[in-house]
């Protein structure tokens, strides 16, 4: 199973690019697609989900040309959009039954699948309530359930954990890990910690271009020996922000503990600390956007 994204570009207007010459080749596993807001993640997701056509480039999934034959890919596709609605007068079962019909699934087997999916997304106890009364997080879970209806080989999830509480986030990450064994999962997010635990590969996107495509360990290697922590007085914080890329701060009684990415020790009291994926992400994004790290 392979997904090949070959030199894909999307132009929205003169000089406005959603994606530029984006290439990537994926095998089964979870790809964490991360990047700042407006980087082009959702554009890429919509193109892969056959919603939007690219301006140029080619996408091949398992030998099927996604642009030439989108319907064959759609049969193998599960998609959770970043922003989607529901039919407020249907309950969860009816809504999933409707989408199962839209996806061309057999009614009887879809019904069993729906029962199971509602348990998985923890909505079994409210299955007969109208969706109009659901909270944002519950709607999100319905979105996840519908994407899994057809047992997709290619699962695309765009900012899936927005609106989920911490417990549900963990549950969802585990679900994705379980699902990823024999399928390609693309998980787009701007929250690096969402992909830290589950992604087998990370792609960083910025201004429509692919910055990095690497294993999480390789990314961590990039910032090994560059992450420092030390406590500074609160009033010194603005000047430190000017000098270094700060990846985190924690308030203490005696000041603020800052975590910076720097090639050399920023202060006599600073100590090296094991890097996290967030440090690597910040380092790479900052470096490609006029690096401030010395």
């Amino acid at each position, binding site marked *: 199973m392979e997904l090949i994204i070959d030199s894909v570009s999307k132009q929205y207007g003169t000089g406005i690019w959603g994606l530029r010459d984006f290439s990537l080749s994926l095998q089964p596993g979870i790809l964490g697609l991360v990047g700042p807001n407006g980087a082009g993640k959702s554009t890429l997701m919509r193109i892969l989900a056959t919603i939007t056509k690219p301006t140029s480039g080619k996408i091949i999934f398992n030998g099927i040309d996604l642009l030439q034959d989108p319907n064959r890919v759609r049969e193998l596709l599960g998609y959770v*959009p970043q922003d989607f609605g529901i039919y407020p007068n249907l309950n969860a079962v009816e809504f999933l039954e409707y989408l199962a019909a839209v996806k061309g699934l057999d009614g009887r087997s879809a019904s069993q699948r729906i029962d199971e999916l509602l348990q998985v997304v923890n909505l079994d106890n409210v299955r007969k309530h109208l969706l109009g009364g659901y909270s944002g997080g519950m709607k999100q879970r319905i979105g996840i359930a519908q994407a899994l209806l057809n047992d997709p080989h290619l699962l695309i999830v765009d900012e899936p954990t927005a609106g989920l509480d911490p417990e549900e986030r963990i549950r969802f990450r585990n679900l994705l890990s379980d699902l990823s064994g024999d399928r390609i999962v693309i998980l787009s997010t701007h929250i690096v910690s969402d992909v830290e635990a589950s992604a087998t590969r990370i792609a960083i996107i910025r201004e429509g271009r692919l910055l990095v495509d690497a294993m999480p360990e390789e990314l961590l290697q990039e910032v090994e020996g560059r992450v420092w922590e030390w406590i500074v007085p609160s009033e010194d914080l603005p000047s430190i922000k000017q000098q270094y890329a700060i990846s985190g701060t924690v308030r203490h009684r005696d000041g603020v503990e800052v975590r910076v990415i720097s090639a050399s020790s920023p202060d006599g009291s600073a100590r090296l600390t094991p890097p996290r994926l967030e440090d690597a992400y910040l380092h790479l994004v900052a470096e490609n956007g006029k690096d401030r790290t010395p």
Partner: protein
Amino acid sequence: MKGLRVLYHIVRADFYERFRRYNVLIIIGLAIFLTILYLPPQGVGRLSFNVGGYRGIYNSAWVGATVTVLIVIFISLPGFYLVKNAISRDERTGVGQIIASTSLSKFQYIFGKVISNWAFLGATAGVAMFAAMGIQLIRGEALKISVLGYLLPYLLVTLPMMALVAAVAVLFESIRWLRGGFGNVVFFILFLVSYWMMAALSVAALPTTTGAGSPSIPLIPEPTGALEIFRSISVAGMELIPDYQGGLDLGNPFQVYGPINTFVWNGVAWTVPSILRRLLWVGIAVGIASLAATFFDRFDPSTPAIRVRRKKARSRFELGSQLARPSPVTLTNIALSTTASRGSRMSIFLHLVGSEVRLMLKGQRWWWYLVALGLILVALILPAAESRQIVLPFVFIWPLLIWSQLGNREIQNRTDQLVFSAPFPLRRQLMASWTAGFVLALVASSGVIVRLILASGWNAVVSVVVAAAFIPAAALALGTWSGGSKLFEVVYLFLWTLGPMNQMVTALGFPLVADQFLALDYVGSSDAAISAGMPLYYAVFTILLLVLALIGRKRQPRV
């Protein structure tokens, strides 16, 4: 002073938001098109607005009056539907929640919306007025432009009517149950009533040689203000046109009358009572706006405006309390063992049609089904001719708000990305939607169809089946292209009123309009329409509309 500044900014933001949309060009284009149509050049033998076959020469007074009448009669209706989105847009975009958390009062907000509606409609009418000046010069019958000839009817007839439309639009948006398609239908009926009121009042108010009407009878204020113009023209006609019997004809610009006679009319002589009659409607608009402010719920989603909303709120409360309980999350229980299989192409399609029908009917109340069933039974009981002529028009209007969801439901509910990323969104899902609408129409008209079959009225059966196919095709085409339900609701109401409804009331002896409009009888409720080949024409239209819907849908998801 601060209040005025706030008001100004609400109006300005709304006005810019509207005027920068392309659909403003549609309404301006429509106004200019009607103006050109209603001011045909001398020599082509066509006549529109006239008294006893005479029309005024195209001076500023006549052109200004013609455009004014066109605007208040023909543009105010689409104008209402165009501006009836000021509050719902704020709700949809979430801006309403931000506004609700500020110190802005309900009255300030509502008056801001009314004034912005008014400004938009007034500006649109103003553009049409400027275009009319150009047409006056092009026609060249009177080359002197009199600003007052345009300005006075604009200020005293157009603007008060537009104030009323602007305020009613906001009132309909403030009352939850009038905000959607039902409100669109209610306004259409109100508009028809005010049109008939104007027509009925004109019988008494316009002078005739028989003395049936008299200029001495004080005019009863009517909202459009067209009567002020009609009376002035009619009085001038009595003096200047020798064989004029009285009355006034809006005319048919498509009909050739032969040589056209003209006379000179110099405009309405506005008096204090006539000005007060017009200003009264501005006062009524202010009253309606105040009423709207009292109904306005300030974007509070928990306002139990209707029972359904109460039910939803209760449902939300119940869900909230269920979620408050600690959920038994065990992270190891995540496993999916079953996989759904795919059926044959036909079984998939039929399954989808069934789902579409269920989705269409979901949320309908019991009384909706009761009326639908009642219409089927009445059609079965009545003789075939009455069943077709009287029951059929009602059968084909009752599910209007269900059909109007076709083609735009996915956009309105933001499920488009879910639905369009499924296989075959064009040939499978779109066609299933149409089939569901067709099935609904067939079931709704089943009483009439059975009655016609029993009476061997096969031609009529064919015309009913064609209508059942045509209506969802029209809904789908207009829904996919407009992205909303309003366009179909308004166009279909027009078609239905002038077509089958007009046929029905004409047969009962109360014609709505002078013309029969056989071409608009898409249900074939009269033998004349069937003989004229309407079923065949509408079958062709149905195919064209389906093609249009396919193109429109292809545009939506960019598949």
